[in-house]
Each structure stands twice: as C-alpha cells, then as structure tokens.
C-alpha cells in the first residue's frame, strides 16, 4: 500500500530543492522505467511526496560548459545517442546507449535515473566512470540553492545506494572534454543484445600513444556491490607496452581484482573468466589501434 499524500511537478530546480525538504520524504519521478516496476513489485515504497521532475529546464539538455560536457540528469538515453556533441567527443557513451534495453526504454529512461538507481550492472555507469564523470548535486540548505560536485567514483556506496543526501537532487553529470588521442571503449556481455542486464561490463580508457595507454581508467560492472574502478588493473596497464605476455598478465590482475557473486545470470567463476577473457580481447584491440 502506498500512502502518497502529495504529488508535485515543479517547474524550476529551486522549487524542486524546496520540495525535497518536506517531511516524510520525497520520491523522485523522471523516466519512470525503474521506479514503476520497483514500486509495483513492492521493492520500493513511494514516499509521502511524489515529485515529478520532468518539467525542470535546468535538468535538461547536453551542452559544453567551461571545458566540460554537461549532460542534464533528464537527458534520455535516446537523446544522448542522437547528440552530435556526444558522438564527437564521447563516443564510448554511444556504445553503451546502443546496448541499453530497448528503443521504448531508451526513449523514456534518463541518465540521471540510471545513475541514481545505482545498480552494479547499470549500463551507463562503467563508461561514465572511465570518463572521470562528476555528479552535480543540488539542494537548498539555507534558503538558497547550492550545488556541489562529487566524482562519480565516490558516489556509489552499495547496490541501489549513493551519497545523494535526503534533500539533494542529481542535476547533471559533467565530463571534461577528452584530450587528443583519448581512447575509450566499452563492452557489455549479456546473453542477448536487447533488454539484457549485463552479466559483466568493462570500460577501458586512457591516452593512447605508441601502443601504450597513459592516465589509464578501467572500470567493471556487475562484479561487485557497486560499479567499480579497478585501480590494480589500471596500475598494471599504465604505460605498459602491450604484447601477448603483458596482456595476459594484465588480464590476470583484472580477474583477481573483481569480487562477483553467483546469481541467476552467472556464477562468480564464470564472471571472473569473462572479465579475464574480455579484458584480454579489449587490450588486443588497444594494441592494434
């Protein structure tokens, strides 16, 4: 049984931040593609106030702002996929969008929702992690609207759990414009191309020069309680000349770094093997680039 007492649909971020201070808590509605099955299935209880944020202009759009690309929290997966800015500067996000659910869901699901839902298998999270994305959080603590930024890597604390404060709203994501020679690839493994929750996913990024990656970022999905950065794998890969022997060694580090569980989609053992084999395949691709 839901006991929703209020439904609000603010038209500004400021108004939304004010509503977030209501007693009894606020559940935020954006695309609805996670909220609806979670609330109908009894996994989530809608709180006293249901707040529809779809009419807030500050949460929309994809634009360059001071050397970074800002993606509004309400940008849908389809909007990201069709954005010329994203195609040009952040093509790894297009790869992730392309494997995201189905057309109908991509048309509704928002990037902010995917981030706040904080699933270890969230499709957009691994590529955002290797892009060093930051979350932009808005609140109105002392009567005036304030924003703080946090690296996405620090945002996730557990399955479905984030550092988002009770009275805070995710306003958008910021990604610094990548430098020349930036390399970033994403791979999602599932049993069918569409509508699959990934068994594992891998993102690899860095500056590619002379067959080696520098300033390396590696992230893995669905192999830990949160979508995780992989510092040991990153260190093993940093500046390394990629040949058969070094690729093998790095893939071993990757396999040892993840801590998956057995579940309906795969066993922990299988996930570790996938991390090993697909890391190898992706690094072989880096070596050829």
């Amino acid at each position: 049984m839901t006991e929703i007492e209020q439904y609000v649909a603010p038209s500004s971020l400021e108004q939304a931040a004010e509503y977030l201070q209501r007693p009894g808590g606020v559940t935020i509605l954006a695309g609805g593609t996670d909220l609806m099955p979670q609330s109908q299935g009894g996994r989530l209880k809608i709180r006293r106030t249901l707040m529809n944020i779809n009419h807030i202009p500050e949460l929309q759009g994809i634009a360059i702002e001071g050397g970074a690309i800002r993606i509004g929290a309400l940008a849908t997966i389809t909007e990201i996929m069709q954005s010329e800015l994203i195609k040009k500067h952040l093509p790894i996000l297009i790869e992730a969008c392309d494997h995201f659910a189905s057309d109908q869901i991509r048309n509704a699901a928002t990037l902010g929702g995917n981030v706040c839902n904080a699933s270890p298998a969230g499709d957009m999270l691994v590529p955002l992690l290797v892009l060093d994305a930051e979350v932009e959080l808005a609140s109105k603590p002392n009567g005036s609207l304030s924003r703080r930024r946090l690296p996405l890597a620090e945002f996730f604390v557990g399955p479905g759990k984030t550092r988002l404060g009770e009275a805070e709203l995710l306003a958008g994501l910021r990604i610094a414009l990548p430098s020349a020679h930036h390399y970033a690839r994403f791979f999602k493994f599932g049993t069918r191309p569409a509508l699959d929750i990934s068994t594992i996913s891998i993102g690899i990024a860095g500056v590619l020069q002379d067959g080696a990656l520098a300033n390396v970022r590696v992230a893995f999905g669905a192999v830990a309680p949160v979508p995780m950065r992989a510092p040991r794998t990153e260190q093993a890969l940093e500046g390394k000349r990629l040949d058969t022997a070094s690729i093998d060694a790095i893939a071993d580090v990757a396999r040892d770094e993840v801590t998956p569980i057995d579940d309906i989609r795969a066993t922990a053992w299988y996930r570790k093997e996938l991390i090993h084999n697909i890391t190898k395949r992706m690094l072989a691709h880096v070596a050829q680039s």
Partner: protein
Amino acid sequence: MSLNHEIEFTLNGVKRRATVRVDMSALDMLREVIGLTGTKYGCGEGECGACTILVDGLSLNSCLMFAVDCQGRNVVTIEGLAADAKADALRAAFTEHGAVQCGYCTPGMVMQASHLLASQPDADAAAIKRGIEGNLCRCTGYKKIVDAIASVNSADKQGATP
C-alpha cells in the same frame, strides 16, 4: 486510499481530462479509466512491448510510464492509428504477410513499427529487427512481422520515386 490527480492531455488527437491515481501507469489509465483496451498488458516491466504507445512522437512502454506524466503531452494509441493513412499501409501489410498469429503482440508491434518507420524511413531488415527488439511475439512469428514492416518501407520508397 491513494491520492488522485487530474491531468489534461491530447489522446489520439483529442484534448481530454482524466482523474488518475498518482501511482497508476499510463497503461492502467488507458485501459481502466478511459476504456481503450487496444493497448495490451503483457509483462508490466517493459520487457515485452505489448503496451507500446507513442508519446510526443516517441514510442514508450505505457506500463512503465506514470499516468500523471501524460500531463500536457500528445499520446497516440493503436486506436489512434485508425485515422492515419501510413498506418493503413502497415495494417494491410501485417494482414497480407500473415504477421498476426494469436494477435496479442500486434498492437504493440504496429505502434513500434510506425515509430520505427517515422524515425528511420530507410530501415532495412537488420534495422527493423533492432527496432522491434523490445517487442516479444510469443508465437515467435518474427520473420513475417519483419517482412511486413519491410514491405511498407519499400512500398513507400517506390511511391516516393518520381
């Protein structure tokens, strides 16, 4: 007692109002409040596409959409396609190609196909398969469905040739 909210939106070209529970899906609103039962309930989780509708020209799973979010938007259901010439061709193609077996997935398939052809008029068989990947046919009659959609596409192209 759950909270109700009144919304105003355009449904199949006509402005209308509806009073809906705030936690109700657009699908439940269409079927139970408004009485349009062409849109089907399949899985209730966005896996099957039987409930596909168009909202502001984009296809969505109406089972995942909150009814209150229809406020101010332009909603088209399978009933609304009855007055659409392009949909006539699609409907005829589904009949001619035998793309309907039990028929349960058909409204959703037709809605998704109409969105696909509107957004990608040149869609080939591969693009059509990708386009309907969110629609399940438990009779597994996909080949005929893809053929039917492809035939509308090629018929269109012939029509457009001067």
